[in-house]
């Protein structure tokens, strides 16, 4: 097998140790860390049993001990890992065993094999229905570092089934040893890398989820680049970033339950799949009500979001009614597709109500103009607008890449309300606090739990809202991209913005949580006559992808800039802000990649595999990028993908060119584009801007005329 290889952990470790010593590094073994010292929430040293080491940076790469080590600093650093028992067997030598047998993985049996001293070494990861066996829940016993746990054949049996099934040869083999070496596992199967949100310059490289040996080199490089350069050379590793977690992820009981499921590393992960353990922790005040209406939930940052609603039985088509098919995992047409279609149509033609409570909400304020000055420095867009203006803006790093993409509203004098994606809760607070003026003049407060969010989407939203509020919702009185604090029903102080995050007309209301149920019921009752429909988060995704709206964490990340994503209209260069130089440079020198929209003209919805992001893009047969997200565009009547096209020179390497040139390159009529979906190449058309069609109502209008508004 070309590129196949095996290493042992001791070999890897001794190689690294040798290299470190060659470069002048010193290694001390058997040293106990008593605490990681901090000053102003920044690493200042490490106190060990042999003395104190002063240092600027600290990397917690203590494996299954990383959670405990994290607690040894002030403030504590949360590293959500939990150990599970983890097994492999080694057989006695088998006659004629090929020493060069490739490593074999069988995801169906959840097992792997390799040759070992003339026999077979085989292990695996227990499937979710069986579950792993968490261990060391109350701490790892002292001096365990070079020890193993006792055999547990009953736990291993499920894997033995897979092993004997895939490799009948070893049915007759004899066992030499069942090795039980515990490993640490994470809540989402991804690694835990990067700078902690709690202590500056405190880095974590842990939660390797049983893939530490093979990853060690890359992870080491990544962490060193983070420390030395600030931003590593790699592409987006947000999925592994330690700041993707919220405090609840470090709850020990949660971890114990969740790792039982996440240990199943070989288990097939369908598009949009969810973990089933450790759920229902963060829920919005209207969660129970939504459940009654048939909501199907998905979890982001431990927050349960309604993804789509099971249609009512009386709603025509038979295929809606098979609920088990709706929930079944697939790479092709999802079971919920027709349900989302109904919601989409309601958004376009009537009015939908979507729970947006999970969004990150932050309040920023100061006595004087310090908060404004601070935000002007953090944001690429101009924040100095009148009270009640909604400002979409990026927060960029020094490379001009997006650290965050958010909406900011000046609510009162020197008080700003910030809305950011759900996943940004930890990261956004970290980024803001890191740059806060040291004099304490600006206060930043996470108010996510204080407010629930309700999104009214659709042509009737304006009339519906006006039925339940005293405030005029007429377009000229309540303009798009403005915000008013209004009463709804009997509830007051509801921060209402005329925007929907998906390009349709409507309102997002941020409601003090205790009023949320009241407002929801008020709108649902008043909405009956408008054919109001509950809708889930998936419909927003479909609407925004069709309109080429980029979302942070999916389409935008710290490695993409406003110039590359075509969002220069949200950049104001007449002020000073982080990343400005990088953007000026890009404006002058150009860029090498550009955010575009693809339409799959000939995609058949019955195809076995649907695009779901991360598909390779080919230009004239040459790989020139990857998609980032995908959805069916109900109005365009076509499948739509978003992604980045790289400008390749004749040698096939990315080349920076001015914006006009890259546009010409992309729109070159002779260029032929294709997207590879699981081995099938689909011809695609490329667009640089939102197709005007996408704003239209559905192409088969069942559209009712808007009621007269006075």
């Amino acid at each position, binding site marked *: 097998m070309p590129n196949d290889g095996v290493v042992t952990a001791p070999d890897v470790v001794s190689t690294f140790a040798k290299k470190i010593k060659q470069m002048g590094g010193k290694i001390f073994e058997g040293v106990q860390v008593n605490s990681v010292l901090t000053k102003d929430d920044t690493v200042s040293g490490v106190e060990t049993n042999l003395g104190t080491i002063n240092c600027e940076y600290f990397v917690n790469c203590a494996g299954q001990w990383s959670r405990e080590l994290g607690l040894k600093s002030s403030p504590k650093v949360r590293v959500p890992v939990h150990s599970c028992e983890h097994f492999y067997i080694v057989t006695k030598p088998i006659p004629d065993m090929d020493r060069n047998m490739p490593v074999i993985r069988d995801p169906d049996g959840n097992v792997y094999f390799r040759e070992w001293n003339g026999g077979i070494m085989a292990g695996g990861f227990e499937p979710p229905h069986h579950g792993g066996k968490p261990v060391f829940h109350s701490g790892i016993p002292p001096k365990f570092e070079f020890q193993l746990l006792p055999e547990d*054949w009953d736990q*291993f049996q499920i894997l033995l089934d897979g092993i004997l099934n895939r490799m009948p040869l070893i*049915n007759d083999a*004899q*066992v030499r040893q069942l090795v039980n070496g515990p490993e640490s596992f994470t809540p989402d199967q991804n690694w835990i890398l990067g700078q902690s949100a709690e202590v500056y310059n405190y880095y974590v490289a842990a939660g390797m989820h049983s893939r530490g040996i093979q990853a060690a080199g890359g992870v080491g490089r990544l962490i060193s680049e983070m420390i030395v350069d600030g931003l590593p050379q790699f592409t987006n590793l947000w999925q592994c970033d330690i700041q993707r977690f919220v405090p609840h992820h470090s709850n020990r009981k949660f971890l114990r339950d969740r790792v039982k499921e996440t240990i199943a590393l070989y288990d097939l992960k369908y598009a949009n799949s969810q973990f089933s353990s450790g759920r229902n922790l963060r829920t919005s005040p209207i969660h129970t009500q939504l459940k009654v209406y048939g909501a199907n939930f998905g979890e982001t940052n431990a927050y349960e979001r309604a993804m789509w609603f099971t249609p009512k039985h009386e709603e025509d088509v038979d295929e809606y009614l098979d609920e088990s098919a709706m929930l079944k995992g697939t790479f092709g047409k999802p079971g919920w597709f027709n349900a989302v279609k109904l919601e989409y149509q309601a958004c376009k033609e009537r009015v939908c109500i979507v729970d947006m409570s999970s969004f990150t909400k932050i309040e920023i304020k100061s006595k004087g103009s310090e908060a404004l000055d601070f935000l002007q420095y953090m944001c690429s867009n101009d924040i100095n607008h009148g009270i009640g203006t909604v400002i979409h803006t990026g927060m960029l790093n020094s490379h001009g890449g997006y650290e965050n993409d958010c909406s900011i509203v000046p609510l009162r004098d020197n008080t700003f309300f910030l809305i950011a994606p759900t996943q940004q809760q930890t990261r956004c607070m970290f980024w803001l606090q890191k740059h806060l003026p040291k004099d304490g003049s600006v206060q930043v407060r996470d108010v996510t739990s204080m407010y629930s969010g309700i999104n009214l989407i659709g042509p009737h939203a304006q009339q519906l809202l006006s039925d339940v509020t005293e405030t005029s919702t007429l377009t000229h009185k309540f303009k798009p991209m403005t915000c008013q604090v209004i009463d709804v029903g009997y509830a007051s102080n509801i921060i209402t913005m005329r925007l929907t995050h998906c390009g349709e007309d409507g309102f997002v209301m941020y409601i003090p949580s205790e009023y949320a149920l009241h407002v929801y019921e008020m709108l649902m009752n008043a909405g009956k006559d408008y054919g109001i429909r509950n809708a889930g988060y998936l419909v927003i995704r479909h609407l925004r992808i069709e309109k080429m709206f980029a979302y942070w964490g999916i389409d935008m990340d710290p490695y993409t800039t406003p110039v590359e994503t075509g969002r220069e209209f949200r950049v104001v260069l007449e002020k000073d802000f982080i990343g400005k130089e990088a953007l000026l440079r890009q404006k002058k020198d150009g860029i090498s990649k550009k955010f575009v929209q693809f339409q799959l003209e000939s995609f058949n919805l019955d195809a076995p595999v649907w695009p779901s992001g991360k598909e390779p893009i080919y230009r004239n047969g040459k790989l020139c990028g990857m998609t980032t997200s995908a959805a069916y565009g109900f109005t365009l009547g076509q499948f739509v993908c978003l992604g980045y096209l790289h400008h390749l020179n004749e040698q096939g390497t990315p080349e920076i060119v001015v914006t006009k040139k890259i546009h010409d390159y992309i729109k070159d009529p002779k260029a032929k584009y294709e997207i590879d979906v699981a081995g099938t190449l689909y011809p695609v058309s490329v667009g640089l801007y939102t197709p005007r069609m996408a704003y239209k109502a559905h192409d088969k209008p069942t559209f009712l005329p808007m009621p007269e508004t006075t």
Partner: protein
Amino acid sequence: MVSWLKSYMYSMNRFYLSKNVISKIIARNSSVVGLESTSHCQNLDLTVTNCRHLTSDLYPKLSRQQVSWYLRYHEYYSGEINDGVLKSFTTNKLASNNPIEDRAAEVRLVHSDGRKNEYLFGVFDGHGGCACAQILSERLFSYVALMLSSNDLLRKIQLEKIDPCRDLIYRFTHKDYYHSQDMEHLYRVALQRLARDLLSAPNDDSTVEDIFKAAFLRLDHDILADALPKEGHGDINIENLSLALTGSCANLAYITGTDVYVANTGDCKAVIGHQIGQDEWIPIMLSYEHDAENEKEVTRICSAHPGESDTVLRNGRLLGDLAPLRAFGDARYKWPSAVMKHALNIFSPNGISIYGESLIPHNYKTPPYLTAEPEVVHHALSARDKFMVIGSDGLWELLKPNQVVDLIAAHMDDRQIISQFVVPQSGITLKEINDVLKVRKRILAKKPEDENVATHVLRMALGPDHTQLSQYLTIPPNIVRNYRDDITITVVYFDTDYIAERNE
């Protein structure tokens, strides 16, 4: 009348009176207004139903953890003993009376003249209070041990070289075990007297059966005699008197070599779990309940009291009062009425027993009506006898012997699987290992909740449904006795290999 009776009974119930007494009250009052005896039971049920209205049966009142805590509170496991035929034993009990009137105790005979591996297992089911059962659990083992001793040993006891209270037995002490230290001196004197009597009338031909009968009768005699004024001393000890007025059944199993002897007085029961096939088990009875359903007993009593057949057994009870037809203590069925009248004259009637003024039973014509003499059953163990269960009648009211045997047998299978699987040294293949593991997995899936088999049987007897268990355990104290009796269960495991070896 009925409502008057009900409220009266309800108030009486609050004083934790036993069922025997309640039915007696009804019988007495109903006879005044001329009700037939069948309607008494209906009245009783009616009362019960009314009381149950106070609680809701729909929801459990205890959590699962609370139920388990409650069921396991008295459980005891000996650990692996592996001494002769005895592998280990386990016991548990559940109170209905307050305080519980059941006692379980187990001892190893330590001074049996070179004979080894001898054990006694006792279950004592008291009534009218717990005092008599308590005394049996303290004293009976020493009586048996002493009577099993050689003359040589008896002489040492007489010469006070050996303490007959402490040196003849090793007691497996449960966590709630207690004994009356004040009385130990009296007990010692009684045992020394017994040793002297045995030496003065040596009888080397006595069988085990004879010994048990003699030991039981001697202890009962001593209990009753202690309550009466000694010759030369006019005083009656009131504590001893009220003790003698309580009663207790006793079931004592004696294991020696591969023989089991069960001496039974009253309505406890001992059963052997006998395996006849892979999953087929039958119970072998080692004792017979002495109650009104036992024809031999009825015949015995009726012939001992000619002309009283109408009164000696009424409502299935001795003199319409006592359910077991043999028992320790219960002086009110043994003493002449003159003795009891004397006692009533000296003491406040309510101070000496729960019977108060009505201490002397109705139709009390030709005492004694009751004996502590046991029926002794011998059983030679075979390799198919895997365990023995001794239970008080509270258990056997809820489960039949074959059900108990099946429960324990299934639990044995399941417990065997609990220990970790270890690959045997021999050349076993991976496929063979996997086949064993698959069987283990099937059995592990239905692993019983309780490791202690006595607790397991207790849970199954009352449940196993959680809501039902919770209901059973939370019946108000004033009526709980109408639903379940005190339950005691002792399970003794035998070493099959040892039996097979000895029987070869």
